[in-house]
Protein backbone atom coordinates (compact mmCIF):
# COMPACT_ATOMS: atom_id res chain seq x y z
CA UNK A 1 0.00 0.00 0.00
CA UNK A 2 1.13 3.47 -0.86
CA UNK A 3 1.06 6.67 1.04
CA UNK A 4 1.04 10.27 -0.09
CA UNK A 5 3.41 11.18 2.74
CA UNK A 6 6.17 9.41 0.77
CA UNK A 7 5.94 11.46 -2.39
CA UNK A 8 8.97 9.88 -4.03
CA UNK A 9 9.31 6.27 -5.12
CA UNK A 10 12.85 5.35 -6.01
CA UNK A 11 14.62 2.21 -7.05
CA UNK A 12 15.61 -0.04 -9.90
CA UNK A 13 13.38 -0.49 -12.92
CA UNK A 14 12.44 -3.68 -14.76
CA UNK A 15 11.61 -3.16 -18.43
CA UNK A 16 8.94 -5.12 -20.32
CA UNK A 17 7.43 -5.07 -23.82
CA UNK A 18 3.87 -4.77 -25.18
CA UNK A 19 0.87 -6.97 -24.33
CA UNK A 20 2.23 -8.44 -21.08
CA UNK A 21 -0.76 -10.58 -20.15
CA UNK A 22 -1.87 -11.75 -16.73
CA UNK A 23 -0.67 -15.31 -17.42
CA UNK A 24 2.86 -13.91 -17.73
CA UNK A 25 2.41 -11.83 -14.59
CA UNK A 26 1.14 -14.78 -12.57
CA UNK A 27 0.65 -18.12 -14.36
CA UNK A 28 -2.75 -19.74 -13.90
CA UNK A 29 -1.49 -22.78 -12.03
CA UNK A 30 -0.67 -20.51 -9.07
CA UNK A 31 -4.24 -19.24 -8.80
CA UNK A 32 -4.77 -21.81 -6.06
CA UNK A 33 -3.07 -19.19 -3.85
CA UNK A 34 -5.50 -16.87 -2.08
CA UNK A 35 -4.19 -13.30 -1.93
CA UNK A 36 -5.88 -12.47 1.40
CA UNK A 37 -3.94 -15.21 3.24
CA UNK A 38 -0.64 -13.55 4.28
CA UNK A 39 1.67 -16.52 3.60
CA UNK A 40 0.08 -17.00 0.17
CA UNK A 41 0.34 -13.28 -0.55
CA UNK A 42 4.11 -13.60 -0.03
CA UNK A 43 4.22 -16.70 -2.25
CA UNK A 44 2.42 -14.77 -5.00
CA UNK A 45 5.13 -12.13 -4.68
CA UNK A 46 7.84 -14.75 -5.13
CA UNK A 47 6.10 -15.94 -8.31
CA UNK A 48 5.50 -12.53 -9.89
CA UNK A 49 6.35 -12.40 -13.60
CA UNK A 50 7.34 -16.08 -13.53
CA UNK A 51 5.35 -16.58 -16.73
CA UNK A 52 7.63 -14.37 -18.82
CA UNK A 53 9.44 -15.99 -21.73
CA UNK A 54 13.06 -16.93 -21.17
CA UNK A 55 14.47 -13.90 -23.07
CA UNK A 56 13.81 -11.70 -20.04
CA UNK A 57 16.31 -11.58 -17.18
CA UNK A 58 15.04 -13.21 -13.96
CA UNK A 59 12.67 -10.81 -12.23
CA UNK A 60 13.30 -12.51 -8.92
CA UNK A 61 16.75 -13.94 -8.32
CA UNK A 62 16.89 -17.66 -7.57
CA UNK A 63 16.37 -18.29 -3.87
CA UNK A 64 14.91 -14.82 -3.31
CA UNK A 65 11.31 -14.04 -2.38
CA UNK A 66 11.22 -10.44 -3.58
CA UNK A 67 12.47 -8.56 -6.60
CA UNK A 68 15.33 -6.05 -6.54
CA UNK A 69 13.10 -3.70 -8.55
CA UNK A 70 10.63 -1.02 -7.45
CA UNK A 71 9.26 0.17 -10.76
CA UNK A 72 8.10 -1.68 -13.89
CA UNK A 73 8.39 0.12 -17.22
CA UNK A 74 6.20 -1.47 -19.89
CA UNK A 75 4.75 -0.98 -23.35
CA UNK A 76 1.16 -1.04 -24.50
CA UNK A 77 -1.79 -3.01 -23.11
CA UNK A 78 -0.10 -4.03 -19.87
CA UNK A 79 -2.08 -6.63 -17.90
CA UNK A 80 -4.34 -7.82 -20.70
CA UNK A 81 -6.23 -11.06 -20.22
CA UNK A 82 -7.83 -12.31 -17.08
CA UNK A 83 -9.49 -10.38 -14.27
CA UNK A 84 -7.27 -12.09 -11.69
CA UNK A 85 -6.47 -9.57 -8.99
CA UNK A 86 -3.57 -11.90 -8.20
CA UNK A 87 -1.69 -10.00 -10.94
CA UNK A 88 -1.31 -6.52 -9.39
CA UNK A 89 -1.12 -8.19 -5.97
CA UNK A 90 1.78 -10.45 -7.01
CA UNK A 91 3.69 -7.46 -8.41
CA UNK A 92 3.10 -5.45 -5.24
CA UNK A 93 4.02 -8.39 -3.02
CA UNK A 94 7.27 -8.74 -4.96
CA UNK A 95 8.18 -5.16 -4.06
CA UNK A 96 6.93 -3.22 -7.09
CA UNK A 97 5.42 0.14 -6.11
CA UNK A 98 4.54 1.61 -9.48
CA UNK A 99 4.16 0.67 -13.11
CA UNK A 100 4.76 3.09 -15.92
CA UNK A 101 3.19 1.65 -19.06
CA UNK A 102 2.21 3.18 -22.37
CA UNK A 103 -1.31 1.82 -21.85
CA UNK A 104 -3.18 -0.70 -19.70
CA UNK A 105 -5.81 -3.30 -20.18
CA UNK A 106 -8.88 -2.01 -18.39
CA UNK A 107 -9.36 -4.64 -15.69
CA UNK A 108 -5.70 -4.65 -14.63
CA UNK A 109 -5.77 -0.87 -14.26
CA UNK A 110 -8.95 -1.03 -12.25
CA UNK A 111 -7.60 -3.79 -10.01
CA UNK A 112 -4.41 -1.83 -9.36
CA UNK A 113 -6.53 1.09 -8.19
CA UNK A 114 -9.13 -0.88 -6.23
CA UNK A 115 -6.50 -2.83 -4.30
CA UNK A 116 -4.26 0.19 -3.83
CA UNK A 117 -1.47 -2.29 -4.53
CA UNK A 118 0.54 -0.02 -6.81
CA UNK A 119 0.37 3.15 -8.89
CA UNK A 120 -0.54 2.43 -12.54
CA UNK A 121 1.01 5.43 -14.31
CA UNK A 122 0.78 6.02 -18.03
CA UNK A 123 3.76 7.29 -19.94
CA UNK A 124 3.40 9.86 -22.69
CA UNK A 125 6.16 8.33 -24.82
CA UNK A 126 7.97 5.06 -25.36
CA UNK A 127 10.37 4.93 -22.40
CA UNK A 128 11.94 1.67 -23.41
CA UNK A 129 14.44 3.47 -25.58
CA UNK A 130 15.79 5.22 -22.47
CA UNK A 131 15.37 2.79 -19.60
CA UNK A 132 17.12 -0.54 -19.29
CA UNK A 133 16.40 -3.16 -16.69
CA UNK A 134 18.48 -2.38 -13.62
CA UNK A 135 18.61 1.40 -14.18
CA UNK A 136 17.76 3.58 -11.21
CA UNK A 137 14.74 5.83 -11.43
CA UNK A 138 12.49 7.89 -9.24
CA UNK A 139 8.86 8.90 -9.45
CA UNK A 140 7.68 12.12 -7.89
CA UNK A 141 4.12 11.16 -7.03
CA UNK A 142 2.61 14.59 -6.60
CA UNK A 143 4.24 16.09 -9.65
CA UNK A 144 3.65 12.89 -11.64
CA UNK A 145 7.15 12.83 -13.08
CA UNK A 146 9.61 10.05 -13.72
CA UNK A 147 13.35 10.67 -13.56
CA UNK A 148 16.01 8.48 -15.15
CA UNK A 149 18.90 8.74 -12.71
CA UNK A 150 21.78 7.94 -15.05
CA UNK A 151 20.92 10.52 -17.71
CA UNK A 152 19.01 12.95 -15.52
CA UNK A 153 16.17 12.99 -18.06
CA UNK A 154 12.76 13.75 -16.61
CA UNK A 155 9.53 12.48 -18.16
CA UNK A 156 6.08 13.85 -17.52
CA UNK A 157 3.56 11.09 -16.77
CA UNK A 158 -0.11 11.30 -17.71
CA UNK A 159 -2.07 12.47 -14.71
CA UNK A 160 -3.72 9.78 -12.66
CA UNK A 161 -6.37 12.36 -11.86
CA UNK A 162 -9.18 11.11 -9.64
CA UNK A 163 -7.49 7.75 -9.31
CA UNK A 164 -4.36 8.86 -7.43
CA UNK A 165 -6.13 9.59 -4.11
CA UNK A 166 -7.78 6.14 -4.26
CA UNK A 167 -4.42 4.37 -4.57
CA UNK A 168 -2.84 6.72 -2.06
CA UNK A 169 -5.60 6.00 0.47
CA UNK A 170 -4.85 2.28 0.13
CA UNK A 171 -7.55 1.25 -2.32
CA UNK A 172 -11.29 1.27 -2.87
CA UNK A 173 -12.45 0.40 0.65
CA UNK A 174 -10.12 2.78 2.46
CA UNK A 175 -11.07 5.53 0.03
CA UNK A 176 -14.80 4.83 0.22
CA UNK A 177 -14.61 5.04 4.02
CA UNK A 178 -12.57 8.21 3.95
CA UNK A 179 -15.15 9.80 1.67
CA UNK A 180 -18.11 8.53 3.73
CA UNK A 181 -19.39 6.34 0.89
CA UNK A 182 -19.50 3.31 3.16
CA UNK A 183 -19.65 3.31 6.93
CA UNK A 184 -18.69 -0.24 7.83
Amino acid sequence: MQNDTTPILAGKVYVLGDDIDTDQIIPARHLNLVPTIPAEYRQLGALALSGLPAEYPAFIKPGKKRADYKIVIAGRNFGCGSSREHAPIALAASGIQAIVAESYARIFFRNAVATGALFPFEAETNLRTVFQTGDEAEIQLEREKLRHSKSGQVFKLKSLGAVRPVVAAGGLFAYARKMGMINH
Partner: protein
Amino acid sequence: MYFLSMTITEKILARAADKAAVAPGENIWVKADILLTHDICGPGTIGIFQREFGRQAKVWDRERVVIIPDHFIFTQDEMARRNVESLRTFAREQALSYFYDPGTPNYKGVCHVALPQEGHVRPGEVIFGTDSHTCTHGALGAFATGIGNTDAAFVMGTGKLLLKAPPTLRFTLDGLKPDYIMGKDIILRIIGDIGVEGANYCAMEFRGEAVAALSIEERMTICNMAIEAGAKNGIIAPDEKSVAYVRARTQKTFTPVTSDPDCTVAKDYAYNIASFEPGVAKPHSPGAYALARELEDIKIDRAYIGSCTGGKLADFIAAAVILQGKRVSVDTFLVPATQEVADGLEKEQINGETLASIFHKAGCLDIAPPSCAACLGGPPDTFGHTHGKEVVISTTNRNFIGRMGSKATQIYLASPLTAAASALKGRITDPRVFM
Protein backbone atom coordinates in the same frame (compact mmCIF):
# COMPACT_ATOMS: atom_id res chain seq x y z
CA MET B 1 -35.76 16.42 -18.93
CA TYR B 2 -34.66 16.49 -22.52
CA PHE B 3 -34.74 13.31 -24.54
CA LEU B 4 -31.41 11.61 -25.03
CA SER B 5 -31.17 8.66 -27.32
CA MET B 6 -28.95 5.92 -25.91
CA THR B 7 -27.22 2.68 -26.79
CA ILE B 8 -28.39 -0.53 -25.14
CA THR B 9 -25.36 -0.40 -22.82
CA GLU B 10 -26.17 3.18 -21.75
CA LYS B 11 -29.83 2.31 -21.21
CA ILE B 12 -29.08 -0.67 -18.99
CA LEU B 13 -26.58 1.34 -16.96
CA ALA B 14 -28.94 4.31 -16.65
CA ARG B 15 -31.69 2.13 -15.30
CA ALA B 16 -29.32 0.38 -12.89
CA ALA B 17 -28.11 3.78 -11.70
CA ASP B 18 -31.67 5.16 -11.28
CA LYS B 19 -31.00 7.86 -13.82
CA ALA B 20 -32.93 9.01 -16.86
CA ALA B 21 -29.84 8.91 -19.02
CA VAL B 22 -26.10 8.32 -18.92
CA ALA B 23 -23.45 9.33 -21.40
CA PRO B 24 -20.09 7.68 -22.09
CA GLY B 25 -17.42 8.76 -19.61
CA GLU B 26 -19.92 9.45 -16.81
CA ASN B 27 -19.05 7.84 -13.46
CA ILE B 28 -22.13 6.22 -11.98
CA TRP B 29 -23.04 3.93 -9.10
CA VAL B 30 -24.60 0.89 -10.68
CA LYS B 31 -26.82 -1.67 -8.94
CA ALA B 32 -25.88 -5.28 -9.61
CA ASP B 33 -28.47 -7.90 -10.50
CA ILE B 34 -26.01 -10.81 -10.31
CA LEU B 35 -22.55 -11.25 -8.84
CA LEU B 36 -20.82 -14.34 -10.22
CA THR B 37 -17.72 -15.87 -8.73
CA HIS B 38 -15.81 -19.16 -8.93
CA ASP B 39 -13.15 -21.19 -7.20
CA ILE B 40 -10.07 -19.19 -8.14
CA CYS B 41 -11.34 -15.70 -7.36
CA GLY B 42 -14.15 -16.53 -4.91
CA PRO B 43 -11.95 -17.32 -1.89
CA GLY B 44 -10.00 -14.06 -2.27
CA THR B 45 -13.21 -12.09 -2.78
CA ILE B 46 -14.70 -13.63 0.35
CA GLY B 47 -11.46 -12.87 2.22
CA ILE B 48 -11.77 -9.18 1.36
CA PHE B 49 -15.53 -9.15 2.04
CA GLN B 50 -14.99 -10.57 5.53
CA ARG B 51 -12.02 -8.32 6.25
CA GLU B 52 -13.87 -5.18 5.20
CA PHE B 53 -17.47 -5.83 6.30
CA GLY B 54 -16.74 -8.12 9.27
CA ARG B 55 -16.72 -11.87 9.85
CA GLN B 56 -20.47 -11.83 10.61
CA ALA B 57 -21.48 -9.71 7.62
CA LYS B 58 -24.14 -10.97 5.25
CA VAL B 59 -23.98 -10.64 1.48
CA TRP B 60 -26.28 -7.95 0.09
CA ASP B 61 -28.65 -10.48 -1.46
CA ARG B 62 -28.29 -14.24 -1.10
CA GLU B 63 -30.37 -14.81 -4.24
CA ARG B 64 -28.01 -12.74 -6.37
CA VAL B 65 -24.58 -14.05 -5.40
CA VAL B 66 -24.05 -17.04 -7.68
CA ILE B 67 -21.02 -19.26 -7.08
CA ILE B 68 -20.00 -21.68 -9.82
CA PRO B 69 -16.75 -23.56 -9.10
CA ASP B 70 -15.28 -24.66 -12.41
CA HIS B 71 -11.58 -23.90 -12.82
CA PHE B 72 -9.55 -26.34 -10.71
CA ILE B 73 -12.04 -29.14 -10.08
CA PHE B 74 -10.68 -32.53 -11.15
CA THR B 75 -7.28 -32.22 -9.54
CA GLN B 76 -5.55 -33.67 -6.52
CA ASP B 77 -4.08 -30.23 -5.77
CA GLU B 78 -4.61 -29.71 -2.03
CA MET B 79 -5.00 -25.96 -2.17
CA ALA B 80 -7.47 -26.10 -5.03
CA ARG B 81 -9.56 -28.50 -2.94
CA ARG B 82 -9.24 -26.28 0.10
CA ASN B 83 -10.51 -23.35 -1.99
CA VAL B 84 -13.64 -25.22 -3.10
CA GLU B 85 -14.19 -26.25 0.52
CA SER B 86 -14.00 -22.60 1.60
CA LEU B 87 -16.68 -21.75 -0.96
CA ARG B 88 -18.83 -24.54 0.45
CA THR B 89 -18.52 -23.13 3.94
CA PHE B 90 -19.34 -19.63 2.75
CA ALA B 91 -22.35 -20.75 0.71
CA ARG B 92 -23.70 -22.58 3.76
CA GLU B 93 -23.05 -19.75 6.23
CA GLN B 94 -24.67 -17.25 3.89
CA ALA B 95 -27.49 -19.63 2.84
CA LEU B 96 -26.81 -18.77 -0.80
CA SER B 97 -29.55 -19.95 -3.15
CA TYR B 98 -27.19 -20.76 -6.00
CA PHE B 99 -24.02 -22.68 -5.24
CA TYR B 100 -23.25 -25.34 -7.82
CA ASP B 101 -21.20 -27.70 -5.72
CA PRO B 102 -18.64 -29.99 -7.40
CA GLY B 103 -19.10 -33.66 -6.62
CA THR B 104 -22.86 -33.30 -6.25
CA PRO B 105 -25.65 -33.63 -8.82
CA ASN B 106 -25.88 -29.85 -8.64
CA TYR B 107 -22.40 -29.40 -10.16
CA LYS B 108 -22.59 -27.55 -13.48
CA GLY B 109 -19.14 -26.82 -14.94
CA VAL B 110 -17.82 -23.71 -16.68
CA CYS B 111 -19.47 -20.63 -15.18
CA HIS B 112 -20.09 -18.73 -18.42
CA VAL B 113 -22.03 -21.55 -19.96
CA ALA B 114 -23.74 -22.52 -16.71
CA LEU B 115 -24.88 -19.00 -15.77
CA PRO B 116 -27.18 -18.51 -18.79
CA GLN B 117 -28.10 -22.19 -18.86
CA GLU B 118 -29.48 -21.90 -15.29
CA GLY B 119 -31.46 -18.76 -16.06
CA HIS B 120 -29.27 -16.25 -14.21
CA VAL B 121 -28.67 -14.12 -17.32
CA ARG B 122 -31.61 -11.92 -18.22
CA PRO B 123 -31.92 -9.14 -20.80
CA GLY B 124 -31.60 -5.63 -19.43
CA GLU B 125 -29.82 -6.69 -16.23
CA VAL B 126 -26.36 -5.96 -14.83
CA ILE B 127 -23.97 -8.83 -14.19
CA PHE B 128 -20.60 -8.51 -12.50
CA GLY B 129 -18.30 -11.51 -12.42
CA THR B 130 -14.81 -12.14 -11.08
CA ASP B 131 -13.80 -13.46 -14.46
CA SER B 132 -12.86 -11.52 -17.53
CA HIS B 133 -15.09 -13.61 -19.80
CA THR B 134 -18.18 -12.43 -17.93
CA CYS B 135 -18.67 -10.36 -21.09
CA THR B 136 -20.16 -13.57 -22.60
CA HIS B 137 -23.53 -12.72 -21.08
CA GLY B 138 -24.04 -9.69 -23.25
CA ALA B 139 -25.17 -12.26 -25.84
CA LEU B 140 -28.54 -12.23 -24.08
CA GLY B 141 -28.81 -8.46 -23.91
CA ALA B 142 -27.40 -7.97 -20.41
CA PHE B 143 -24.60 -5.61 -19.38
CA ALA B 144 -21.96 -8.02 -18.12
CA THR B 145 -18.37 -7.29 -17.22
CA GLY B 146 -15.42 -8.85 -15.44
CA ILE B 147 -14.09 -7.33 -12.21
CA GLY B 148 -11.38 -8.11 -9.65
CA ASN B 149 -11.73 -9.48 -6.13
CA THR B 150 -11.76 -6.10 -4.39
CA ASP B 151 -14.52 -4.72 -6.59
CA ALA B 152 -16.41 -8.00 -6.21
CA ALA B 153 -16.12 -7.83 -2.41
CA PHE B 154 -17.55 -4.32 -2.59
CA VAL B 155 -20.49 -5.59 -4.66
CA MET B 156 -20.94 -8.52 -2.30
CA GLY B 157 -21.39 -6.15 0.61
CA THR B 158 -23.25 -3.27 -1.00
CA GLY B 159 -24.83 -4.55 -4.22
CA LYS B 160 -23.28 -1.60 -6.06
CA LEU B 161 -20.21 -0.61 -8.00
CA LEU B 162 -18.85 2.68 -9.32
CA LEU B 163 -18.46 2.39 -13.09
CA LYS B 164 -17.55 4.63 -15.94
CA ALA B 165 -20.11 4.32 -18.73
CA PRO B 166 -18.27 3.05 -21.82
CA PRO B 167 -18.47 4.47 -25.33
CA THR B 168 -19.84 1.96 -27.84
CA LEU B 169 -18.10 0.48 -30.87
CA ARG B 170 -20.85 -0.84 -33.12
CA PHE B 171 -20.28 -3.79 -35.43
CA THR B 172 -22.93 -4.32 -38.07
CA LEU B 173 -22.67 -7.81 -39.54
CA ASP B 174 -24.66 -8.42 -42.68
CA GLY B 175 -24.74 -11.14 -45.30
CA LEU B 176 -25.58 -14.79 -45.29
CA LYS B 177 -23.28 -16.86 -43.09
CA PRO B 178 -21.62 -19.71 -45.01
CA ASP B 179 -21.92 -23.03 -43.17
CA TYR B 180 -18.12 -23.25 -42.74
CA ILE B 181 -18.12 -19.99 -40.78
CA MET B 182 -18.75 -19.99 -37.03
CA GLY B 183 -19.03 -17.31 -34.34
CA LYS B 184 -15.37 -17.96 -33.60
CA ASP B 185 -14.30 -17.06 -37.14
CA ILE B 186 -16.26 -13.82 -36.90
CA ILE B 187 -14.79 -12.66 -33.61
CA LEU B 188 -11.22 -13.72 -34.50
CA ARG B 189 -11.48 -11.65 -37.67
CA ILE B 190 -12.78 -8.61 -35.78
CA ILE B 191 -10.06 -8.84 -33.12
CA GLY B 192 -7.49 -9.25 -35.88
CA ASP B 193 -8.78 -6.07 -37.48
CA ILE B 194 -9.11 -3.81 -34.43
CA GLY B 195 -6.27 -5.30 -32.35
CA VAL B 196 -6.07 -6.64 -28.82
CA GLU B 197 -6.65 -3.20 -27.32
CA GLY B 198 -8.87 -1.97 -30.11
CA ALA B 199 -11.91 -1.87 -27.82
CA ASN B 200 -10.17 -0.97 -24.56
CA TYR B 201 -12.70 0.60 -22.14
CA CYS B 202 -15.47 0.34 -24.78
CA ALA B 203 -18.65 -1.61 -25.26
CA MET B 204 -18.67 -3.79 -28.39
CA GLU B 205 -22.20 -4.01 -29.75
CA PHE B 206 -22.94 -6.54 -32.48
CA ARG B 207 -26.00 -6.21 -34.67
CA GLY B 208 -27.22 -6.80 -38.20
CA GLU B 209 -28.97 -9.53 -40.15
CA ALA B 210 -26.08 -11.95 -39.73
CA VAL B 211 -26.20 -11.57 -35.94
CA ALA B 212 -29.98 -12.03 -35.94
CA ALA B 213 -29.51 -15.30 -37.81
CA LEU B 214 -26.97 -16.66 -35.30
CA SER B 215 -27.93 -19.10 -32.57
CA ILE B 216 -27.64 -18.01 -28.95
CA GLU B 217 -24.60 -20.23 -28.49
CA GLU B 218 -22.81 -18.62 -31.45
CA ARG B 219 -23.68 -15.16 -30.12
CA MET B 220 -22.09 -16.20 -26.82
CA THR B 221 -18.87 -17.18 -28.60
CA ILE B 222 -18.68 -13.70 -30.10
CA CYS B 223 -19.42 -11.79 -26.90
CA ASN B 224 -17.11 -14.12 -24.92
CA MET B 225 -14.08 -12.82 -26.79
CA ALA B 226 -14.92 -9.10 -26.58
CA ILE B 227 -12.42 -8.98 -23.70
CA GLU B 228 -9.72 -10.21 -26.09
CA ALA B 229 -10.03 -6.82 -27.78
CA GLY B 230 -9.97 -5.15 -24.35
CA ALA B 231 -13.70 -4.37 -24.23
CA LYS B 232 -15.59 -3.67 -21.04
CA ASN B 233 -18.58 -5.56 -22.37
CA GLY B 234 -19.86 -7.23 -25.50
CA ILE B 235 -23.56 -6.95 -26.19
CA ILE B 236 -26.26 -8.02 -28.61
CA ALA B 237 -29.75 -6.55 -28.36
CA PRO B 238 -32.30 -9.11 -27.22
CA ASP B 239 -34.68 -10.46 -29.83
CA GLU B 240 -37.32 -13.19 -29.89
CA LYS B 241 -34.64 -15.86 -29.89
CA SER B 242 -32.86 -14.61 -26.81
CA VAL B 243 -36.07 -13.86 -24.95
CA ALA B 244 -37.33 -17.40 -25.68
CA TYR B 245 -33.99 -18.84 -24.48
CA VAL B 246 -34.27 -16.95 -21.19
CA ARG B 247 -37.99 -17.63 -20.64
CA ALA B 248 -37.33 -21.34 -20.94
CA ARG B 249 -34.87 -21.10 -18.04
CA THR B 250 -36.31 -18.70 -15.47
CA GLN B 251 -39.61 -17.60 -13.99
CA LYS B 252 -38.15 -14.21 -13.12
CA THR B 253 -39.45 -11.16 -14.93
CA PHE B 254 -37.14 -8.94 -16.92
CA THR B 255 -37.39 -5.91 -19.18
CA PRO B 256 -35.41 -6.14 -22.41
CA VAL B 257 -34.02 -2.91 -23.83
CA THR B 258 -32.43 -2.13 -27.18
CA SER B 259 -30.42 0.74 -28.65
CA ASP B 260 -32.33 3.75 -29.94
CA PRO B 261 -32.08 3.94 -33.73
CA ASP B 262 -30.45 7.38 -33.62
CA CYS B 263 -28.09 6.75 -30.69
CA THR B 264 -24.52 7.98 -30.83
CA VAL B 265 -21.65 5.52 -31.02
CA ALA B 266 -17.93 6.16 -30.92
CA LYS B 267 -17.26 4.18 -34.06
CA ASP B 268 -19.12 2.08 -36.62
CA TYR B 269 -17.74 -1.00 -38.34
CA ALA B 270 -19.49 -2.90 -41.11
CA TYR B 271 -18.83 -6.43 -42.32
CA ASN B 272 -20.41 -8.73 -44.82
CA ILE B 273 -19.78 -12.16 -43.42
CA ALA B 274 -20.62 -13.94 -46.66
CA SER B 275 -17.02 -13.27 -47.68
CA PHE B 276 -15.46 -14.54 -44.43
CA GLU B 277 -13.11 -17.50 -44.48
CA PRO B 278 -12.20 -19.84 -41.59
CA GLY B 279 -9.71 -18.00 -39.39
CA VAL B 280 -7.05 -18.76 -36.82
CA ALA B 281 -5.23 -16.73 -34.15
CA LYS B 282 -1.55 -17.61 -34.13
CA PRO B 283 0.65 -17.82 -31.03
CA HIS B 284 0.75 -15.90 -28.72
CA SER B 285 -2.02 -13.39 -29.27
CA PRO B 286 -5.76 -13.63 -29.99
CA GLY B 287 -5.13 -10.73 -32.37
CA ALA B 288 -2.55 -12.58 -34.52
CA TYR B 289 -5.08 -13.35 -37.24
CA ALA B 290 -4.48 -15.56 -40.26
CA LEU B 291 -6.66 -17.63 -42.56
CA ALA B 292 -6.65 -21.36 -41.82
CA ARG B 293 -5.76 -22.09 -45.43
CA GLU B 294 -2.64 -19.93 -45.14
CA LEU B 295 -1.29 -22.12 -42.32
CA GLU B 296 -1.63 -25.53 -43.87
CA ASP B 297 2.06 -26.26 -43.41
CA ILE B 298 1.78 -25.97 -39.63
CA LYS B 299 1.88 -29.43 -38.07
CA ILE B 300 -0.06 -29.92 -34.86
CA ASP B 301 0.41 -32.37 -31.99
CA ARG B 302 -3.02 -32.08 -30.49
CA ALA B 303 -6.48 -30.63 -30.85
CA TYR B 304 -8.47 -29.29 -27.92
CA ILE B 305 -12.23 -28.70 -28.02
CA GLY B 306 -13.63 -27.15 -24.88
CA SER B 307 -14.04 -24.02 -22.69
CA CYS B 308 -16.67 -21.32 -22.37
CA THR B 309 -15.87 -20.16 -25.90
CA GLY B 310 -15.70 -23.48 -27.71
CA GLY B 311 -17.14 -26.22 -25.47
CA LYS B 312 -20.87 -25.69 -25.95
CA LEU B 313 -23.17 -28.25 -27.55
CA ALA B 314 -23.17 -26.38 -30.89
CA ASP B 315 -19.36 -26.53 -30.86
CA PHE B 316 -19.35 -30.30 -30.41
CA ILE B 317 -22.00 -30.73 -33.10
CA ALA B 318 -19.77 -28.77 -35.50
CA ALA B 319 -16.76 -30.91 -34.62
CA ALA B 320 -18.77 -34.12 -34.99
CA VAL B 321 -19.99 -33.13 -38.45
CA ILE B 322 -16.35 -33.08 -39.55
CA LEU B 323 -15.19 -36.14 -37.60
CA GLN B 324 -18.04 -38.56 -38.37
CA GLY B 325 -16.74 -41.66 -40.09
CA LYS B 326 -13.12 -40.50 -40.03
CA ARG B 327 -10.10 -40.96 -37.74
CA VAL B 328 -8.14 -38.20 -36.03
CA SER B 329 -4.38 -38.32 -36.48
CA VAL B 330 -3.41 -36.42 -33.32
CA ASP B 331 -4.50 -36.56 -29.66
CA THR B 332 -7.89 -34.90 -29.53
CA PHE B 333 -9.10 -33.60 -26.18
CA LEU B 334 -12.81 -33.02 -25.63
CA VAL B 335 -14.03 -31.09 -22.60
CA PRO B 336 -17.73 -30.23 -22.52
CA ALA B 337 -18.28 -26.90 -20.75
CA THR B 338 -21.10 -28.11 -18.54
CA GLN B 339 -22.82 -31.30 -17.44
CA GLU B 340 -25.77 -30.35 -19.65
CA VAL B 341 -23.41 -30.23 -22.66
CA ALA B 342 -21.90 -33.57 -21.57
CA ASP B 343 -25.40 -35.09 -21.42
CA GLY B 344 -26.07 -33.62 -24.85
CA LEU B 345 -23.09 -35.52 -26.28
CA GLU B 346 -24.86 -38.75 -25.35
CA LYS B 347 -28.25 -37.62 -26.69
CA GLU B 348 -27.63 -35.48 -29.76
CA GLN B 349 -27.36 -37.51 -32.96
CA ILE B 350 -26.04 -36.98 -36.46
CA ASN B 351 -27.20 -39.56 -39.04
CA GLY B 352 -28.52 -41.74 -36.22
CA GLU B 353 -25.23 -41.76 -34.28
CA THR B 354 -24.62 -39.93 -31.01
CA LEU B 355 -21.89 -37.32 -30.83
CA ALA B 356 -20.16 -39.37 -28.12
CA SER B 357 -20.07 -42.38 -30.42
CA ILE B 358 -18.81 -40.31 -33.36
CA PHE B 359 -15.94 -38.98 -31.22
CA HIS B 360 -15.13 -42.41 -29.83
CA LYS B 361 -15.00 -44.03 -33.26
CA ALA B 362 -12.94 -41.15 -34.60
CA GLY B 363 -10.28 -42.01 -32.03
CA CYS B 364 -10.61 -38.97 -29.76
CA LEU B 365 -9.49 -39.30 -26.14
CA ASP B 366 -12.22 -40.19 -23.68
CA ILE B 367 -14.48 -37.21 -23.06
CA ALA B 368 -13.42 -35.41 -19.88
CA PRO B 369 -15.82 -34.29 -17.17
CA PRO B 370 -16.96 -30.66 -17.56
CA SER B 371 -14.69 -27.90 -16.25
CA CYS B 372 -12.23 -25.27 -17.50
CA ALA B 373 -9.56 -28.00 -17.68
CA ALA B 374 -6.54 -27.01 -19.81
CA CYS B 375 -8.14 -23.85 -21.19
CA LEU B 376 -6.03 -22.15 -18.53
CA GLY B 377 -3.48 -24.85 -17.89
CA GLY B 378 -4.38 -25.46 -14.26
CA PRO B 379 -2.44 -27.67 -11.85
CA PRO B 380 -0.08 -30.11 -13.65
CA ASP B 381 -2.53 -33.04 -13.29
CA THR B 382 -5.23 -31.17 -15.24
CA PHE B 383 -6.70 -32.94 -18.30
CA GLY B 384 -5.01 -31.57 -21.42
CA HIS B 385 -2.33 -29.58 -19.52
CA THR B 386 0.72 -29.28 -21.79
CA HIS B 387 4.19 -30.15 -20.54
CA GLY B 388 6.48 -29.56 -23.51
CA LYS B 389 6.63 -28.08 -26.98
CA GLU B 390 3.20 -29.24 -28.10
CA VAL B 391 1.57 -27.41 -30.98
CA VAL B 392 -2.13 -27.23 -30.18
CA ILE B 393 -5.14 -26.17 -32.19
CA SER B 394 -7.76 -25.12 -29.69
CA THR B 395 -11.32 -23.79 -29.58
CA THR B 396 -10.49 -21.78 -26.44
CA ASN B 397 -10.12 -18.01 -26.30
CA ARG B 398 -6.53 -17.30 -25.24
CA ASN B 399 -3.21 -18.39 -26.70
CA PHE B 400 -0.92 -16.49 -24.35
CA ILE B 401 2.50 -17.95 -23.55
CA GLY B 402 2.05 -20.74 -21.01
CA ARG B 403 -1.74 -20.53 -21.08
CA MET B 404 -2.20 -24.31 -21.37
CA GLY B 405 0.67 -25.20 -19.04
CA SER B 406 4.05 -25.22 -20.76
CA LYS B 407 5.63 -21.95 -21.91
CA ALA B 408 7.03 -23.80 -24.94
CA THR B 409 3.56 -24.77 -26.19
CA GLN B 410 2.26 -23.04 -29.33
CA ILE B 411 -1.50 -22.48 -29.27
CA TYR B 412 -3.54 -21.73 -32.39
CA LEU B 413 -7.12 -20.60 -31.72
CA ALA B 414 -9.81 -21.67 -34.16
CA SER B 415 -13.43 -22.70 -34.56
CA PRO B 416 -14.50 -26.26 -33.70
CA LEU B 417 -14.88 -26.95 -37.43
CA THR B 418 -11.29 -25.90 -38.09
CA ALA B 419 -9.97 -27.69 -34.97
CA ALA B 420 -11.70 -30.92 -36.02
CA ALA B 421 -10.49 -30.69 -39.63
CA SER B 422 -6.96 -30.06 -38.35
CA ALA B 423 -7.21 -33.05 -35.99
CA LEU B 424 -7.93 -35.27 -38.99
CA LYS B 425 -5.00 -34.04 -41.06
CA GLY B 426 -2.49 -33.39 -38.26
CA ARG B 427 -1.95 -29.95 -39.79
CA ILE B 428 -3.91 -26.74 -39.63
CA THR B 429 -6.68 -27.33 -42.11
CA ASP B 430 -9.46 -25.25 -43.59
CA PRO B 431 -12.67 -27.19 -42.78
CA ARG B 432 -13.99 -26.69 -46.31
CA VAL B 433 -11.67 -29.56 -47.26
CA PHE B 434 -14.10 -31.89 -45.42
CA MET B 435 -17.39 -30.15 -46.14
